[in-house]
């Protein structure tokens, strides 16, 4: 969900881009993080915990806590809260520690 009206802020969006979340095509904007684009599309689960396979999402949103690690273009352990969205990105839920493909 996006903020449509705001009393003091103007959100200047970048260019519209397509990306893939677990194979599903979604829309986002350049300049925003992958996590922001996923949230805008209502996706809040980012990875599965290592032992109990519990869903995990965003927690600190500044690149500290490692709660939001995902697979991006086949690369595991990408902190999607600080990684910027790009056209055509393949973003996938990360299982456990992730695997290098």
């Amino acid at each position, binding site marked *: *969900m996006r*903020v449509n009206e705001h009393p003091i*802020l103007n959100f200047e969006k970048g260019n519209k881009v397509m990306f893939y979340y677990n194979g599903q095509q979604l829309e986002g904007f350049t300049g925003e993080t992958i*996590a922001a684009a996923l949230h805008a599309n209502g996706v*809040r*689960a980012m990875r599965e915990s290592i032992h109990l396979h519990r*869903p995990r*999402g965003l927690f*600190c*949103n500044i690149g500290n806590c490692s709660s939001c690690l995902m697979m991006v273009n086949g690369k595991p352990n990408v902190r999607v809260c600080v990684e910027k969205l790009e056209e055509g990105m393949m973003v996938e839920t990360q299982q456990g520690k992730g695997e290098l493909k």
Partner: protein
Amino acid sequence: MRQTEVCIIGGGPAGLTAALKAAGLGAEVTLIDRNDYLGGQLIKQTHRFFGSKEQRASERGINIARELAEAVEKEDKITVLTKAAALSYYKDGVVMVKQNERIIKIKPQKLIVATGGSEKNLMFPNNDLPGVYGAGAVQTLVNVYGVKPGRKVLMVGAGNIGVIVSYQLLQAGVDVVGIIEAAPKIGAYWVHASKVVRAGVPIYASHTIKRAWGEKEVAGATIMKLDEKWQPVPGTEKELDVDVICLSVGLSPLTELLWQAGCKMEFIPELGGHVPVRNEDLETSQPGIYIAGDAAGIEEASAAMMEGALAGLNAAEAMGYKVSDFKEQKEVVMKELNGLRSGPVGEKIRKGLAKAIS
């Protein structure tokens, strides 16, 4: 290997001010930040600041950040590396930095660590579900990217940050179902609290969160009352229909690099956790390593800027850069800083600092 006179890690208010002061004395500075922008936490703070007038209260944090960042970028003596994360510090005084998938080695003569803090979590069942966020995280999502974390929010913690972020959520059109606070009285200043109260958000003092509900994401929360001894009162449970739980229960200093450098650390709850022991000049037990801002102890942005100024001045002076009004410059900052920390509001910080300064 890059050589630099003063290396500053962290481009928040503390690091930016340190860079300006050190460069002002003539030192050559390298400022690094892992973000692709400068300003640290300030860039998402749209509210008018708390603090006294000299410290730019009533200015919005976001504007202060812009001004500082512009001044730093204009200064020839400062080299700025963004998207550059300091990964480690080695015995021989080398800082390892990762930028654009490459490693850069930096050997500074003086180091200022101004890495800020990270938000604390809270223990309760299901606190790991997606939908439980730090308050600063939600603030970043909403104020920087214009994206909502969900529809209905429970805010845990009624200090300034909890209350301010609640108000900013309302501004963005997100419903705040309630704010809970474990203490019998809220910690936030009334100027901020009155705004959310006027907007109809209930504040529950002496309340805690018992658990979150949900399978894949947060789908609700149970709160309950605490007695005078901070023990939950059975039978007072209340279920809230929320899909976001926002934790605003404090920050802890980001000090990994200082641990690596072998700085003497002390656990001081008043300053947010483990902090480096330092002298009046903000130098740690490792000569030549200085600290400033939230990394030195969780406080607020005005204090971070003043500590940054002091660390910058001291590091440059220790390099041998002299200016005739050095003492006066320092005294002005010290006076402001002491003013900021005076009175009942500053009591906790004063207590913490008394333990941290050796």
